[in-house]
């Protein structure tokens, strides 16, 4: 018999990432069928209703009420699981109480305590974020807004306010920034230099900054804008244009790089105009737009790695040499030969399993251009949007950081289990030839992203071999030597089970393309 038990604790706020980790522990409890530990936000209450885990108390819960709902095989197990959850939560409370620093509840109090504060990082639930941003801007503080689910109307209003005040309002949904050399949220430890970046793409900014360091360059600032800044005409690329203006005035910045998914046409025009006026060499990567073109001080890059390569060449006063692979061509051919020689007939499909949205898009756009018919949850062509994002079809590139995968669970960069599950699922498909993966290092990412998926990758390779075939796994690591995960160790782990590790996402995608072309 299945038993449901629900506990609602009034006025006990915990942050979502912490609750997701507790949720995971409770789910793993012996005899527990399903469990939800979350705050009573509208979205969560709906989710609980769908799962049949709501009672009257749950339905009237607010975002300040904690809900623990457990479905278990007996009353005893359910009670034990709830007790275990409470214990974990109490441990957290007493840990916070023990830390000697006082934690202010309001922004006014925080500023009183830290009068020289100049930036606020906001990651509270989206429904409450706008009012906090407004307060911060009105107190003349720069803002990085990590929260998503902030309305377009609020974004426009807040960015107008930021513009009036001349302040940064990075976001909403801004996951990455590097200000004055300090990595904010999901960002890597990158050397200082003379290249300034404004990006409307989180992992795109990570890939470009890491590649800049790889090519021997460094950065001044990495300003994030949030993905809607250029996509929507009313937002109008406001934060990107302010970022460009600030980099223009910054004497440390010699070269400017801008990154975005294809912008709205009128917005692209405004941004390009702003770049022209800087008089500094500018590299533009608008995913596929104008690649290879040069107009005055503007250089258009085809991919993220190229944007970094061009910027470093410009900063050093060198000529940029266009090339697909930074490893020798013979070596690439030898890898393709090795990776394809033991494949079974019928192995023909690509499965891109990404944690980074911009990296997934970069691969998808490349494959779409070269061979077409790429299924994805990020596809703009309706006929190629995956019918069920949890199930691949044909050539598929899936962005596992998409909302459909992250409701009630942490982003796959933090918790690799979403991707692990997907790898296990994909390995049952005998038509898969290549798995293409990103490994994103840096602050806020998992402490061992390669190690966490190694077992499942190994299993997938064994399974293909048992079927008389060979599974090729092509990866790239977005990271620097300064990142705490130890990039060399990550690479060694992947190579120890026969994964190919390429120097960038672009090169990994190009290699996967060569393999698919050879067997397809």
């Amino acid at each position, binding site marked *: 018999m299945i038993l449901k038990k629900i506990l609602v604790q009034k006025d006990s706020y915990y942050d979502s990432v912490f609750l997701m980790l507790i949720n995971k522990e409770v789910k793993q409890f012996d005899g527990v069928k399903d469990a939800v530990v979350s705050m009573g936000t509208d979205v969560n209450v709906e989710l609980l209703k769908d799962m049949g885990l709501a009672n009257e108390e749950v339905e009237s819960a607010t975002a300040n009420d904690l809900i623990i709902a457990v479905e278990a095989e007996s009353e005893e197990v359910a009670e034990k699981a709830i007790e275990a959850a409470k214990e974990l939560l109490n441990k957290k409370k007493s840990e916070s109480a023990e830390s000697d620093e006082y934690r202010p509840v309001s922004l006014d109090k925080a500023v009183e305590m830290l009068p020289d504060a100049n930036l606020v990082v906001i990651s509270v639930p989206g429904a409450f974020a706008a009012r906090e941003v407004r307060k911060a801007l009105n107190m003349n503080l*720069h803002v990085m807004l990590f929260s998503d689910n902030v309305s377009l109307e609020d974004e426009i209003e807040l960015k107008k306010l930021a513009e009036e005040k001349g302040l940064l309002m990075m976001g909403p949904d801004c996951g990455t920034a590097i200000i004055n050399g300090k990595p904010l949220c999901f960002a890597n430890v990158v050397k200082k230099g003379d290249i300034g970046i404004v990006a409307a793409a989180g992992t795109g900014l990570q890939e470009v900054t890491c590649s800049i360091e790889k090519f021997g360059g460094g950065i001044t600032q990495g300003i994030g804008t949030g993905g809607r800044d250029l996509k929507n005409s009313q937002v109008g690329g406001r934060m990107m244009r302010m970022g460009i203006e600030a980099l223009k005035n910054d004497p440390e910045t010699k070269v400017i790089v801008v990154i975005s998914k294809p912008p709205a046409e009128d917005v692209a025009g405004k941004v390009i105009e702003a770049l022209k006026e800087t008089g500094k060499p500018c590299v533009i990567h608008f995913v596929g737009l104008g690649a290879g073109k040069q107009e005055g001080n503007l250089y258009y890059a085809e991919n993220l790695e190229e944007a970094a390569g061009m910027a470093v060449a410009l900063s050093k006063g060198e000529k940029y040499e266009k090339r697909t692979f930074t490893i020798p061509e013979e070596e690439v051919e030898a890898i393709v030969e090795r990776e394809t020689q033991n494949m079974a007939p019928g192995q023909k499909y690509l499965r891109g399993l990404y944690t980074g949205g911009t990296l997934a898009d970069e691969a998808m756009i490349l494959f779409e251009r070269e061979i077409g018919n790429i299924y994805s949850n990020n596809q703009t062509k309706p006929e190629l949007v995956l019918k069920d994002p949890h199930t691949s079809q044909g050539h598929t590139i899936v962005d596992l950081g998409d909302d459909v995968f992250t409701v009630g669970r942490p982003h796959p960069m933090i918790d690799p289990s979403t991707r692990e599950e997907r790898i296990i699922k994909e390995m049952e498909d005998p038509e898969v030839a290549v798995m293409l993966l990103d490994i994103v290092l840096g602050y806020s990412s998992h402490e061992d992203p390669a190690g966490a998926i190694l077992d499942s990758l190994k299993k997938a390779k064994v399974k293909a071999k048992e079927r008389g075939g060979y599974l090729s796994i092509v990866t790239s690591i977005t990271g620097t030597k300064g990142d705490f995960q130890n990039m060399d160790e990550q690479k060694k782990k992947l190579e120890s089970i026969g994964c190919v590790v390429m120097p960038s996402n672009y090169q990994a995608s190009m290699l996967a393309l060569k393999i698919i072309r050879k067997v397809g």
Partner: protein
Amino acid sequence: MNVKPINELFKKELVVINMGLESFADNLKDVGVKVLQMNWKPPAGGNKKISSLLSRLGR
């Protein structure tokens, strides 16, 4: 376009107030940034309607 405060920020030491996920504050401490973690709670006891009303009243 007025961006003077941004250029001033570029010349200053970054000092951060972190409102929300605590790990972001830990990361900043790790790289030597002065940071204050807030004990943020949903306003008006988590009631969105009252919260938005208060926000409009400037509270």
